[in-house]
């Protein structure tokens, strides 16, 4: 009995000490309920399992009033704006979506401690800034690099056949032209595919955009006139079309989104996969992936302009201007993006936005004898530092994207001549930019 009492007392003391320590860090919001809307999905959920720790430390409760994929959340937030029902404090956000929302989110520069912000990657904070206001705190970033099945590149028969056909040595591709050659070479449809691409929504617009930039083109000129129907734009569209026509990608690719490409590579039926780091741990996990132990990684290829593709962005948290307890909201998003919680997300392969986490996660994987994940953070770290760029951070971006991607599909499927498809999309994009006041 005495032992039990001692144990209980000891546990209580430890808990109280822990709480006292946490109180100093996260504040005391006892009795308050913080209403939040968060992005949902398998790779985002692990972080939310930590929320009870913040609740225990602050005495507050977190009411997750909505948890949806980002496209659905975006629609819901737009309806909230229209109905004037923004009755929550924190919402998940994204650098590509944030410019649409006007002034519903506060500038974090005024409310967050400068020493906390200083621990974040400067470029991530810059990309999270809209009209000089830091409307969101970066949670994790995304940029894509190229995963491949190593065994295909080690096979001597493959090496010989490839050299004979294309005249250069088989090695993980450094350019989009090589990427295309190799994808076509490896494909044996319908059982095995050279690669795959996300085929609809902003996903394919983003892929097209980063290839356009890598090829030396641009979406708009300095006066916001669309210029993606340039020769560089055509070359980028033709990359997709040639892969599709040669059956190097699954026929259903044009309906694919991120889950489809990730699961496709993990199924072992795809040679090359340009994808975000969030899949890295999954791909190398034998319980989930048939390519575990056989996964190679190289930086995203270069285009004709000598630049690598690097379409990037960050998932973020924002605080609403209608929030009735900004201190609690600031505490909450600081907690969700603190060192320990970013380490939790980084263990899955999600790219941290705090600079120290990059160093610490690599050290942890090195100590654990996991060279693959060390390589993942090396490659993606280099990519974030040298290749990453965001789409134009302008309000009509999603609307412009919505006129580009259906026409990319028309060009790929041959419903329109590729140049005509781009010209038509550019004309529609121009009207949108005129309506939004970017073109006078």
């Amino acid at each position, binding site marked *: 009995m005495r032992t039990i009492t001692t144990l209980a007392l000891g546990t209580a003391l430890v808990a109280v000490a822990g709480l006292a320590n946490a109180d100093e860090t996260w504040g005391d919001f006892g009795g308050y309920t913080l209403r939040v809307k968060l992005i949902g999905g398998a790779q985002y959920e692990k972080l939310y399992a930590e929320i009870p720790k913040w609740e225990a430390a602050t005495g507050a409760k977190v009411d997750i009033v909505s948890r949806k994929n980002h496209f659905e959340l975006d629609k819901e937030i737009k309806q909230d704006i*229209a109905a004037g029902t923004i009755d929550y404090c924190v919402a998940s956000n994204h650098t590509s979506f944030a410019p649409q*929302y006007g002034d519903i989110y506060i500038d974090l520069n005024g409310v967050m401690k400068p020493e906390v912000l200083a621990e974040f990657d400067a470029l991530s904070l810059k990309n999270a800034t809209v009209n000089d206001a830091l409307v969101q705190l970066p949670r994790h970033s995304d940029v894509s690099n190229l995963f491949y099945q190593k065994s295909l590149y080690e096979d001597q028969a493959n090496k010989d056949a490839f050299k004979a056909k294309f005249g250069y040595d088989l090695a993980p591709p450094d350019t989009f032209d090589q990427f295309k050659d190799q994808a076509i070479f490896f494909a044996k449809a*319908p059982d095995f595919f050279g690669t795959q691409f996300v085929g*609809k929504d902003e996903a394919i617009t983003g892929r097209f955009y980063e290839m356009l930039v890598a090829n030396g083109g641009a979406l708009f000129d300095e006066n916001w006139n669309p210029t993606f129907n340039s020769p560089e734009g055509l070359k980028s569209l033709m990359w997709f079309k040639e892969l599709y026509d040669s059956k190097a990608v699954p026929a259903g690719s044009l309906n694919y989104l991120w889950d489809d490409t990730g699961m496709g590579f993990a199924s072992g*039926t795809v040679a090359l996969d340009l994808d975000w780091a969030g899949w890295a741990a999954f791909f190398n996990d034998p319980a989930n992936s048939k390519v575990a132990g056989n996964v190679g990684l190289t930086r995203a290829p270069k285009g004709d302009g000598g630049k690598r593709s690097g379409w990037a962005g960050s998932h973020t948290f924002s605080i609403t201007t209608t929030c009735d307890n900004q201190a609690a909201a600031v505490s909450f998003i600081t907690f969700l993006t603190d060192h320990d919680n970013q380490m939790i997300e980084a263990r899955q392969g999600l790219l941290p936005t705090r600079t120290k986490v990059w160093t610490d996660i690599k050290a942890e994987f090195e100590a654990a004898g996991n060279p693959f994940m060390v390589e993942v953070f090396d490659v993606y770290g280099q990519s974030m530092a040298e290749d990453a760029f965001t789409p134009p951070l302008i309000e009509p971006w999603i609307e412009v994207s919505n006129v580009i991607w*259906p026409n990319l*599909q028309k060009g790929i*499927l041959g*419903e329109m001549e590729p140049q005509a498809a781009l010209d038509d999309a550019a004309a529609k994009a121009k009207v949108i930019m005129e309506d939004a006041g970017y073109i006078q």
Partner: protein
Amino acid sequence: MPFWRRESAIPYLLLLPALAIMALVVAFPLIFSLYTSFTGYRLVRPDSLYDWVGLRNYSRILQDYDFWVAFGRTVLFLTVVLNVEFLLGLGIALLINRITWGQRTLRTIMMFPMMFSPILVGFQFKFMFNDNIGIVNNALQSLGLSDGAIAWLVDGKLAFFSIAFAEVWMSTSVFAILLLAGLFAMPRDPLEAAKVDGCNAWQTFRHITLPFLMPFAYIAMAIRSLDVARAYDIVTVMTDGGPAGRTELLWTLIARVGYDNSRMGLANAMAYVSTILSILFTWYFYRKLVAARRYMGGAQ
């Protein structure tokens, strides 16, 4: 004495709550959305509600080729699914009507597809028609009927077939139930008289059963032509109107313009133009219903 205290005012006063509620839940949203269709209203800019643009949204729609293609495809979709649902529903109703044992159980089972959320139906058929891992291609390949991956959700005709198939699967039982109700209500005398007169089964069906059922069929069609917009969820999940707009229906187009692009003014104008479709279908089925009832009443 004021009007509202007179005895003759009582019916109006009694109707007033109902009228007020109708005005609130039906008339006000209709008038509000009609008004917004003449504005440049954007969801994320509440102040744009007062941005009057006159007929600009309607003039854009008239010149919008993609809108009219989606309009035509929606007419085709409605025509195909309503007819297929009618034929299958009629067949199921006739078969169940013949059953003497376990009919109630079968009627309940028949209603299962209606109980599914359209989103779930969409995911179910998206998986089944997936070109790479879908059960349909898998079955066709295993049976030796196909040696390639058929792109069900990409090929223009097949994608249209796939979304129509999902919609028909979910809603055929609506027809079956209404037609079965018609069969239950059918008087036996004309059928027996036909038998006495020497009619065969086809003649009895063609000249007695079917004309009797047609009013029920037209009621079902009128209801379904308005209700079929529920297919929005199915189409959104399966193809989202793509690829390359090959399965774009008015509902997916309007939702994208209104919510993704935030152009609610333009979306409402599209919705008002598309109500022409609903009015035409309802008017057509109502006329057929009146004609069928007149026929049954012996007027012709």
